[in-house]
């Protein structure tokens, strides 16, 4: 297990290097002008001012050279300056990463637990009414984009029923984050993110468990008269849930892209909404750091999935992965 972790960490280095290099290449090729974004709508900016700003703000050299000097300062502990937020990048990330982890963590745990429960329930009676309701709902939700769900949730809970706030972290007139306030503000974005992840888990679990229920060992167990509950928990779940562990890892990138939209719609002050802002204002120092961060999250997700898989299935040897 330690060896697997170690090898993955080593492999992460070239992956991160390539991803960030790619990001700098794309940035260099993009038609957007960071100076134009920095100036915004200030129509009075003279050519002289623009030239001075360009000299101050634009990095020198080709994108490979820019990337190299960026790498150098990152290893020196300096992530650079965010152009759009006029703050050091490290400060932007430090102020926001906790809120994103909270949102994503809650949504992820909820969707894994809820998805597994619903999937198992549906798998017990394939074709039954519960299965049909759960499966068709899952297919429908799978097709629904998270931002659309988010707007729908705001419309229903914040505007029509007026029971939950439409966005932000606290009431508009208050600065202090209280537990109750946080829970009520977290409810909608977390629920939307959960629901957008849910179908994958439900459908995977349903398929895995119902396949397992038709495997020989399960049939044998049933034939020996072992009761249905023991068959399900003791035999079918163990092999039926294995694919879910892989899914846990592979859903991480989806979780991040889902959070991008959900955080933006709900004005959640997390890292994902900063990413959207960095992208729309061509804030490359911030974007580079966030790209590296999300690549790290994906790698960590995959590692987690493999580790879990090895722990759950004795046939899998970590040293062979």
């Amino acid at each position, binding site marked *: 297990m330690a060896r697997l972790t170690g090898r993955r960490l080593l492999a992460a280095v070239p992956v991160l290097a390539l991803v960030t290099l790619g990001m700098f290449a794309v940035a260099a090729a993009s038609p957007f002008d960071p100076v134009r974004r920095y100036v915004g709508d200030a*129509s009075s900016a003279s050519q002289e001012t623009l030239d001075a700003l360009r000299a101050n703000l634009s990095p020198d050299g080709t994108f490979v050279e820019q990337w190299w000097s960026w790498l150098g300062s990152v290893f020196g502990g300096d992530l650079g300056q965010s152009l759009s937020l006029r703050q050091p990048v490290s400060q932007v990330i430090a102020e926001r990463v906790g809120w994103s982890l909270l949102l994503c963590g809650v949504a992820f745990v909820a969707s894994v637990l809820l998805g597994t429960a619903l999937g198992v329930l549906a798998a017990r009676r394939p074709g039954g009414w519960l299965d049909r309701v759960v499966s068709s709902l899952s297919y429908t939700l799978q097709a629904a984009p998270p931002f659309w769900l988010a707007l729908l949730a705001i419309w229903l809970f914040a505007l029509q029923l007026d029971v939950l706030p439409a966005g932000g972290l606290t009431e508009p007139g208050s600065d202090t984050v209280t537990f109750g306030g*946080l*829970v009520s503000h977290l409810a909608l974005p977390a629920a939307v993110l959960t629901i957008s992840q849910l179908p994958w888990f439900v459908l995977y679990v349903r398929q895995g468990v119902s396949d397992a229920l038709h495997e020989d060992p399960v049939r044998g167990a049933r034939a020996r008269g072992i009761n249905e509950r023991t068959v399900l928990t003791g035999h079918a779940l163990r092999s039926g849930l294995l694919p879910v562990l892989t899914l846990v890892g592979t859903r991480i990138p989806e979780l991040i892209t889902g959070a991008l939209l959900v955080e933006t719609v709900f004005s959640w002050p997390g890292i994902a909404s900063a990413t959207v802002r960095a992208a729309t204002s061509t804030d490359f120092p911030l974007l580079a750091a966030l790209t590296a961060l999300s690549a790290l999250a994906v790698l960590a997700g995959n590692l987690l999935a493999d580790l879990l898989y090895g722990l759950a299935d004795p046939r899998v040897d970590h040293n062979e992965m």
Partner: protein
Amino acid sequence: MTVRRRYGGGVVATAVAAVVATAGCSAPSDDDGDGGGGGGGQDSVVIGIANEPETLSPLLGYGKDGNSKIFDGLLRHDDELGLEPALATELPEISEDGLTYRYTLREGVAFSDGEPFTSADVVFTYEAILDEGTNNPAKGELDAIESVVADGELGVVFTLEYPYAPFAERTVLPIASAAAVGDQDVNTGAYNTEPVGTGPYVLTDWSPGERISLTANADYWGGEPEVKRVTMAVIPDDDVRATRLRSGDLDAAVLPPNLAEGFADEGGMITVNAESADFRAVTLPSDNPVAGDQAVRQALDLAVNRELMVESILLDAGHPAYNAIPTASPWFAEGTEREFDPEEAGRILDEAGWTLDGGDTRARDGERAAFTLWYPAGDRLRQEHALAYASDAKDIGIDITVESGSWEIIEGRLAEDAVLSGGGDPADPDFQLYTLLYSELAGNGYNNMAHYRNPAVDEQLDAGRRSGDQAEREAAYEAVQRELAEDPGYTFLTHIDHVYVMADAWDGVTTQVEPHDHGLGHGPWWNVEEWRVRS
């Protein structure tokens, strides 16, 4: 991470599930007791704005036109846009040659961190902005300054490179605290998000993308404001802003006219229309063989139905525009209004040789009367103006292709193609007209995007900015406007009213004539520190 650990894991998942499940039956508990939109007085206000500033540091351009609640300038504007002293004790003493401006500062003023305010802070602020390394996009507005020096604790003297009559208008610029900035990097330091000023309000919290919270400054030299808390909630989407205003989350918001209309019958709410100098105009690039032709320019000027644009695009929240100066401004040259007259426009084109030969589009010497008009993608108001303009032009035989793109794309084509531009600064005619029309500024950054060149206009613009005599200045700007009516390098279409809807809970709510920029410093809350809570 600490956050996640404290509330993390399954407990929160269960809690969230429980909240979601019981959402339907729990009572709304959002009110903090002040109520919202109910019509009663309240000492806090939550304002919905569309855009937030990138920085709260005046050194990088925040509040440069005055009205920043955290800061004061040497001078400030009253509701008629007249200048009155703020951190200075009176209007500046101006030397005979117009080159020296002397300010005397108010005694006993302190920054919100308790440090005394002195002339050193004024000198620091202006020098920091003018410093080459400072990334302030508006620093060009202070071009005229040659030096700024302290004269004792309470005196500041500006020396100008050339006589610049509207210079005093520039000194509404907020004064930063030299001590609080210390040795920070002005481009990236903490001062950008944790400003310290002398203003009526103190920043208590800024959560970028979400909200800016201000609390009344109890030690404000002008007296403690009655409205104790001002919160700016950042909500880019117009519809969300409108619905959150309706639900009572917000007490006030800037809204587009069509959404503001829905609040007309709402009890306890008032709609405030602020007149503005915010214009929409089509640039007619001088180097384009069609748009650069004087006859075509005059014809287009007569062929656009401005009244109809105001009525149908702005829902009457605006006024026809004939140049950058609003018709209601005392600087506007009476008699330069142009009636909608497509027939006269056709006659002008015929006379100039632009003739219709059977087809729908005119031509002269094989040159089709056609050009491209851009608008920045995503700006619906400009899109509607552009389409209306093209349709009016089509009626007189000029074929305008409307296209949209990002500014990066548009910028490269300004010399050839037209663009639906916007802008407006009501403080002084020089601020807008000089940058729009001065020949030397053709194609210079975002100045003079039409590449307008007219020596007679240049001469008057110079006279207008250099003369210290009010009558001479008025004559100069009147001459500019008359010349512009003869040779319009832009087709000015409308001046847009800025529309706000707010709870009717305070006395003293007024508006100023607003610049292009609005919502944060400009809006009915421009003087929130002077509002009285209605009992």
